C-alpha cells in the first residue's frame, strides 16, 4: 500500500510533540499508518468512531477535562461532522485540531471521492475554519504546531489538509 510511512511518522511525531493525548479516528486509506501508530502507542487514547461527528463531542469532552486531542478523518467525514462543529464547537468555543485527508484533488482516480474534494475548501471557508495544507514534509511539524496554537488561542476548530503529495507515494 503506497501510503507514505515516513510522512505518517512525521505527522504522528508532530502531534505527540503538541502533547496530544487523545485521538479520534475513522479509518480511511491515507490514515492507515497514523491510526496504527496511535493504536500501538500505550500513551495515546485512540477512539475508533462509528461516524466522524462523534469525534467533535469526544474532543469537546476532552477539552472540558483539560486533555488535548486531535481528530483524524477523511474530508467526507468532515462533511459528516458539520452540525457538531457548528452547534457544539463554535457555540461553546471548543478548540478542535482536525486532520483531514484531502481526497478528490488533482490526481484522484476514485470518482466517489471527487464530489467531496470539490467542496472541502469552500465549506471550510464558509464555516470560518482556518486551514492550511500539509503537502511537503518540510513544513509538517511547524504547521501542525501553529495550527494547534491557533486552535487553543482562538478556541475554535482549525483544519490541516493532508494532501496527496504528502500522503501517497505513486
Amino acid at each position, binding site marked *: 500500500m503506497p501510503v507514505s510511512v515516513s510522512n505518517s511518522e512525521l505527522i504522528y511525531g508532530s502531534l505527540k510533540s503538541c502533547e496530544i493525548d487523545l485521538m479520534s479516528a475513522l479509518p480511511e486509506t491515507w490514515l492507515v499508518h497514523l491510526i496504527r501508530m496511535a493504536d500501538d502507542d500505550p500513551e495515546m487514547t485512540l477512539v475508533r468512531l462509528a461516524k466522524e461527528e462523534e469525534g467533535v463531542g469526544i474532543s*469537546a469532552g476532552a477539552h472540558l477535562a483539560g486533555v488535548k486531542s486531535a481528530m483524524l478523518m477523511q474530508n467526507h467525514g468532515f462533511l459528516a461532522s458539520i452540525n457538531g462543529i457548528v452547534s457544539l464547537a463554535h457555540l461553546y468555543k471548543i478548540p478542535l485540531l482536525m486532520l483531514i485527508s484531502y481526497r478528490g484533488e488533482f490526481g484522484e482516480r476514485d470518482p466517489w471521492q471527487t464530489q467531496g474534494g470539490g467542496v472541502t475548501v469552500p465549506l471550510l471557508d464558509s464555516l470560518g475554519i482556518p486551514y492550511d495544507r500539509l503537502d511537503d514534509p518540510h513544513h509538517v511539524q511547524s504547521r501542525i504546531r501553529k495550527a494547534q496554537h491557533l486552535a487553543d488561542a482562538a478556541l475554535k476548530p482549525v483544519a490541516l489538509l493532508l494532501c496527496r503529495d504528502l500522503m501517497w507515494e505513486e
Partner: protein
Amino acid sequence: MALTSANIQRMSRADLTSRVLGMVDDDTAIIGGIGNAGFDLFSAGDRPGNFYMLGSMGMAVPIGLGLALAQPERTVIVMEGEGSVLMTLGTLATVGREAPPNLTIIVWDNAQWQLTGGQTTATGVATDLSVVAQGCGIANSNAPTNETEFEQAVRYALDAPSPHAIVAHIDAEPASGRPHDDPIVTKYQFMQAMGQQLE
C-alpha cells in the same frame, strides 16, 4: 416485543433526576442533553458539575465519552432524551467498544420529540434502546420499570466499574425551569468543576 404506552408504567423525569442528584457526590460530572433532559437537571439542582447542552443534538453521549476517557477517575453521567440518542445511535457502539468504566448513560425515553409537539419517536413504535445498548456491547443495560428499580440501577452503575445504560420510560411533563442560556458561562463553570485552571 416493543414496549408501548399501553403496557409500561411511565415515571417522572423530574423525580428521577432528583433521585440521581441525591445519590451522587459533588465530583460527579453530569451532562444534561438538550431540551427537557437539561432543563430538569437544572431544576432538580444546579451544581458546578452539571453541563447543560444547548443545540448540538446528539452530542451529549460523545461529550460524556470524551470526558470519561480524559478523566478516568471521575464518575460521568449523561442524561439524554431518546430522540437525541436515536440521532447518534452509532455512538452507543463506540461506547461499547471503548468500554469506559466510569460512564453511565441515562436515557429519558418518553417515546416522543417532546419540545417540538410530541411527535412519536421510533421507541414508541418499534425500538427498544436498552436492547440496542446491550447489543452495542454495553452489557450493563437495563430498563427499570419503577422508581425502586431505577434507584437500584443507578446505585449499581455508581458501584460497578463498567459502562452502564439505564433506559427510563418517563412521561411528558415539561420541566419546571431552564438554565441560563449562555454557553460560555456554562462551559467555564463546568471546566472549573472539572479541575481546570482558567485564565
